[in-house]
């Protein structure tokens, strides 16, 4: 080309080095909060620094966390699933029903996962095939799925799960490490790898930032979204297995209100609720923060409803404070 008067400009790969980016990240901020809460807790209660107690405390977030990872991907892609807690109810009901007919642990696990997948597919159908907004669809299926549990169970309860089934929610794999925390960790790693290290994860980010642009770039947008709903359903199934196993019984009201905790965890983890950005490590730290806060306040016998004020403040505060700080800093500079 006629580029005589102009030297081609060199474009570097990256503007900032890795350390620089990590230090400025949401995850770093959240980690500071987590460490802060941990330290505060150890001062506030003499019972906090005890491995067995901490091990018990993990139940406060493990099941929610499992779903939160799948939900994180879904939210990054610009969708949401508010029916997860109801999927748990339906999957648990199905498992309970099967247990009444003498199903063994492997069958129960299969049933829990299958019902989760089916519910995910049902949501996915409305969102990807009929093109309806997911928040609305899943508000509907939230009532529908739990409603089916009520139809099946009424005012009854299912119990009588096989003894071996108790492992998922009550077992330990090694020393203080529970089966649930192990499942949580495995899922975290899998989702971290899928989101951050694979083509699929890249597609999820692309769709979240610009679904039309992603479609025009040759990404099968609807298929990816379908898979994400399936995954969320599947994770709800896994959580249903763990929760049912932990409770040893099923009622239709199981896991009521859990969807909001899951969304809170995801948002606290730095996932942009509008889609397009966020990371799995962020969600992992957020899970620990929420677990630590609720357990710490529990040790101080703070009533649950007051605890929820803290979670609400945390949710808004963690997002608001840095922005406020930037705003004030900008004001100072211009003044």
């Amino acid at each position, binding site marked *: 080309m006629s580029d005589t008067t102009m030297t081609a*400009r060199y*474009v570097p790969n990256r503007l900032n080095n890795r350390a620089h980016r990590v230090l400025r990240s949401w995850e770093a901020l959240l980690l500071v909060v987590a460490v802060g809460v941990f330290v505060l807790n150890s001062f506030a209660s003499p019972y906090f620094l005890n491995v067995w107690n901490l091990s018990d405390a993990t139940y406060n977030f493990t099941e929610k966390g499992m779903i939160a990872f799948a939900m994180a991907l879904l939210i990054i892609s610009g969708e949401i699933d508010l029916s997860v807690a109801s999927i748990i109810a339906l999957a648990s009901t199905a498992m309970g029903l099967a247990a009444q007919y003498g199903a063994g642990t492997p069958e129960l696990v299969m049933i829990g996962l299958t019902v989760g997948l089916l519910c995910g597919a049902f949501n996915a159908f409305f969102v990807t095939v009929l093109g309806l907004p997911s928040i609305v669809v899943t508000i509907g299926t939230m009532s529908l799925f739990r409603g089916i549990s009520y139809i099946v169970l009424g005012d009854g309860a299912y119990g009588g799960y096989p003894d071996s089934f108790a492992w998922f929610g009550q077992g330990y794999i090694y020393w203080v490490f529970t089966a649930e925390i192990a499942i949580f960790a495995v899922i975290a790693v899998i989702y971290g790898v899928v989101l951050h290290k694979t083509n699929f994860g890249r597609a999820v980010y692309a769709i979240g930032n610009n679904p039309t642009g992603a479609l025009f770039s040759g990404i099968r947008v609807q298929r990816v979204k379908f898979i994400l709903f399936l995954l969320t359903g599947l994770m709800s199934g896994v959580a249903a297995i763990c929760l049912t196993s932990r409770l040893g019984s099923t009622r239709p009201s199981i896991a009521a209100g859990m969807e909001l905790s899951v969304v809170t965890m995801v948002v606290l983890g730095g996932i942009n609720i509008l889609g397009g950005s966020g990371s799995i490590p962020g969600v992992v730290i957020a899970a620990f923060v929420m677990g630590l806060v609720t357990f710490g306040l529990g040790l101080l016998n703070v009533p649950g409803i007051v605890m929820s004020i803290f979670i609400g403040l945390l949710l808004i505060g963690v997002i608001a404070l840095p922005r406020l700080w930037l705003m004030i800093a900008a004001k100072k500079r211009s003044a």
Partner: protein
Amino acid sequence: MTDHATPVVSMDAITKTFPGVKALDAVQLDLYAGQVTALVGENGAGKSTTVKILTGIYFPDGGTIRIDGEPVTFANANAAADAGITAIHQETVLFDELSVAENIFIGHAPRTRWGLIDKAAMQRAASKLLHDIGATFDPRALLRNLGIANKHLVAVARALSVDARVVIMDEPTAALSHKEIEELYELVETLKKQGKAILFISHKFDEIFRIADRYTVFRDGGLVGTGLISEINEDALIQLMVGRTVDHIFPQRTPNVAEDVLQVVGYAHPTEFADINFTLKRGEILGFYGLVGAGRSEFMQSLFGITKPSKGVCKINGSIRVIRSPADAVANGIVYVPEDRGKQGTIIGLPIFQNITLPSLGRTSKSGFLRLVEEFKLAREYSERLDLRAASLDQDVGNLSGGNQQKVVIAKWLATQPQVIILDEPTKGIDIGSKAAVHEFMAELAAQGLSVIMVSSEIPEVIGMSDRVIVMRDGRIEAELEGDALSPETLVRHAAGISATLMEEA
């Protein structure tokens, strides 16, 4: 002479910085009553930013705006309108769910005694405005039911609904067809006669020399020259703008056309297009000309798997291929550079390198796992080939100027090593320097054996670049022109559906 008159509006040492970009650096701009000032500059020179500052959308970081010599500040768009400045913006700033009249008057609707909106008065005023600019549709119609050209007329009517002394037009002709452009020129003349000061932004030089009285040139956010149009010629203006000379001639090509690559037989869609038949040869540049709304983009998008055709067959290298999605199209070597860069072309929010590698991840990755090193390698290769200007490859593509975004989109598709590349209005809204580069590049691609389909509404580009031209009208192929048959007259005639005899009479 007018030079001694006080400008109606003058911008003095205006500076505006965005995170990472100095969009305007102490620029100066004066607009005079009854004169058209053309603002020219490369993509990203800061033209639209200037418009947004003048209309109260952005607040400048430094400098003064004066109206009749008095310093003013605009808190928001209404303040600027109250001061008599109105604009037709580069982006469409209209509301699909509101009626035409409401679109025109939103923010300054006539009120009844009770402070409620006076719908009747508003519709009357809207009717009159629309009538004055030659629009024929009902002001009560919902905007979403209008075509793109009519929407543009609504935007014009909105700008005129303010009793303004200054009218700004940011690339007003980019979406218009020949006839509508002529009407717009007439409107500019009328406004001039009414003594309004006009700021006109365009990348089309014929246009500038036809209607402007003065020019102001920006380069990289700074002022590089200003003066009377009558005292400058095209080459000098381009040199000011780009900072170097640009051969404004289309690249010379020796078509070494070979076998058929793509054959389209009987493509049809229930409402958008019908009976599309043509073949594309290896190494050829095939132009698609037509008026805006002729259905070219619709057809191209169906070839790319976005909209599904109701019938028709597509053969690639002689064998029939079914294309149900863009992913299928890419797999079959067909790629599409869309017209709407912001929405369809780039993925704003992702860094440049990820935009470029998005459709090529299959090659840069290993069994589904990303390999960043390979990605950067690929992105670097193609961004260097296209002379991309950016701070770094991991910068958000949204921070690039329009022209550089277009380069990212083209790089993204070239990296997939396609057989057929469809470029939909590839130089729309692109400055003359980059435009020449794109033309050069297209020629290079064709020479390397890539087949190019170029959709364009610019006659010089169509004639200068294409080996063959297909003209579309109302969703059908009207003519296929080649060699000597390829002239501006024949193109316009077929595109508008005027028979040869009528044309001669006219």
